[in-house]
């Protein structure tokens, strides 16, 4: 006999989200959420990030931004576009090869994922960007949530034309309130185009930050991504990359800097859908205090995707006994002529190295900083633009010296 399925008991966060969905006119999603609830650890892709447990409450939906915080990261040469409280703001005259606009609705494709569904329901407008030719300045999308604690969704849709090249930096920050932000970026990389896409979460202490970065790579495209978590209380960045054209390559990297009280999650889904594509995934996690760092990485190789070459690596570094570093790499391979692999390592700072550095007069804190920097070099070194590299290094250094 089948057991009748019990309706889920809804918590305060779920109740609020359902009311907000209903208010936004999306009764279908409201209905769906009231049946399923937020994902628990029993949902595979949320195994280490039980949203039902972690998301205690949801602040009211955001209004227009009336105040402005400072940009979290300033790059002198960058062309900066602001999205405040989900709304793309007017921008300065665009440099050559950059077309800026905005469009109604969200940007992500359909995914069976609650954060994607919520973004799609709440993001009313997307910043749209078309990049053509060799785009010289770094494009910075500065996303901020201003004012009192709010639930905000933002979205950007970026097309990089065939044979073009561009570097895009996205930063997330805002007022010092317990916001819930749900951000989306859809990036289509054209044929033989080369794109570097970097996201840095610098939200303040109490924030819940969600981001979904979706990539679609055409033939011969080259993508380099780096996602950095250096803020928020709870954060999850989902990276969905799809190889749609042969000969494409992606370097996908992440840096999880997790401090006392934080729970920060990278969830990766790389889909090699066509033959002859390559990818390399490198994720580094550093944990301090009582904290939780999560990496889930899945590489899917479709039946036709022969000659796929994919290597995924997670390396964790625990700076305290109470830092938890979790890793779940998965390979789902349906083709037979492929080279795929994954590895996971976790450790503490090497005691002999610490002693050696300290024996030369270097303080414990500085020695630690030097070794952690060394550990992170592999993900920062490939960022070629000197100013950008310096800015990202500064983010890491700030985190290191800002120890609690």
């Amino acid at each position, binding site marked *: 006999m089948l057991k009748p399925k019990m309706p889920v008991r809804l918590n305060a966060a779920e109740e609020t989200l359902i009311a907000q969905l209903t208010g936004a006119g999306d009764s279908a999603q409201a209905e769906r959420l009231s049946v399923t609830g937020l994902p628990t650890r029993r949902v595979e892709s949320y195994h280490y990030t039980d949203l039902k447990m972690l998301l205690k409450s949801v602040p009211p939906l955001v209004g227009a931004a009336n105040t402005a915080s400072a940009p979290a990261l300033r790059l002198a040469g960058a062309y900066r576009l602001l999205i405040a409280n989900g709304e793309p703001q007017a921008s300065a005259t665009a440099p050559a090869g950059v077309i800026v606009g905005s469009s109604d609705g969200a940007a992500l494709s359909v995914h069976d994922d609650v954060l994607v569904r919520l973004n799609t329901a709440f993001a009313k407008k997307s910043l749209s960007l078309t990049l053509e030719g060799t785009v010289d300045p770094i494009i910075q999308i500065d996303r901020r949530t201003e004012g009192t604690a709010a639930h905000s969704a933002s979205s950007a849709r970026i097309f990089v034309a065939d044979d073009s090249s561009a570097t895009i930096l996205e930063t997330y920050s805002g007022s010092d309130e317990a916001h819930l932000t749900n951000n989306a970026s859809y990036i289509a990389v054209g044929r033989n185009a080369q794109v570097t896409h970097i996201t840095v979460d610098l939200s303040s202490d109490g924030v819940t930050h969600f981001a979904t970065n979706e990539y679609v790579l055409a033939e011969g495209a080259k993508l380099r991504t780096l996602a950095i978590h250096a803020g928020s209380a709870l954060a999850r960045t989902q990276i969905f990359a799809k190889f749609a054209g042969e000969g494409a390559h992606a370097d996908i990297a992440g840096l999880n800097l997790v401090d006392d009280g934080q729970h920060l999650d990278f969830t990766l889904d790389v889909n090699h859908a066509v033959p002859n594509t390559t990818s390399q995934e490198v994720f580094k996690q550093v944990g301090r205090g009582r904290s939780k760092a999560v990496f889930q990485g899945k590489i899917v190789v479709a039946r036709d995707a022969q000659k796929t070459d994919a290597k995924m690596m997670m390396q964790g570094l625990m700076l305290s006994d109470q830092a938890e570093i979790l890793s779940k790499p998965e390979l789902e391979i349906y083709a037979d002529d492929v080279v795929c692999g994954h590895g996971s390592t976790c450790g503490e700072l090497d005691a002999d190295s610490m002693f050696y550095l300290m024996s*030369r*007069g270097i303080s414990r804190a500085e020695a630690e900083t030097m070794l952690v920097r060394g550990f992170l070099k592999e993900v920062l070194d490939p960022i070629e633009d000197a100013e950008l590299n310096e800015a990202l290094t500064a983010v890491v250094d700030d985190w290191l010296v800002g120890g609690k």
Partner: protein
Amino acid sequence: MTNPILEIRNLHARIEDREILKGVNLAIPAGELHAVMGRNGSGKSTLSYVLAGKEDYEITEGEVLLDGVDLLGMEPNERAAAGLFLAFQYPIEIPGVATMTFLKAAMNAQRKSRGEGEISTPDFMRAVKEAGASLNIDASMLKRPLNVGFSGGEKKRAEVLQMALLAPKMCILDETDSGLDIDALQVVSKGVNALRSEQRSMLVITHYQRLLNHIVPDVVHVFSDGRIVESGDKSLALQLEAKGYADFDSEPA
């Protein structure tokens, strides 16, 4: 009478449950260079690590004074700031740290402890270049990560380079001669001798009398089973070379 630079009194140290140092007594007056010789495993490196402040050891008895100041309560970096330097028997390779970054950090840490500002890049480059040249250190070596891929002899020369740059008042050299070719031994010895001065003392751990032809010691100590069992002038090293350690074993082997 002035204090010895280094004074070790009845030092006992253990690792896990094993006592390695069993009552070391040693005083090195300012300006003197003492050599320590002894069998493999007798505890010479342990002594050097305990002096430099490696965490693994438990000090069960005794004290160590550097220029009259108690050393054992200090962190390794504080000991360095107080003027102690250990040239490691096995220098550590650190892949993520550039050699030049490390040298500069060490020099700046020392300057900071003296209340001085950071060294300027040109001054730093000049200091490294000069010290490097006198030790025949290839500039390309310094562009690599710290000690990574250095040959055995290169590592030892890099240790002496650090010593020259930091100009400590108490230098401990743990088998700095091992792994050096004949020419390198001359070069390194010259470098060490250049650092000898009235204000500075040195403790040189070695297995080979040959080194002591180049670096002539004021006193030679024989180390056996965790303590110094005999001390004499440089002729003691010659005697050891000829007859081995059998005469000095605390218990007959």
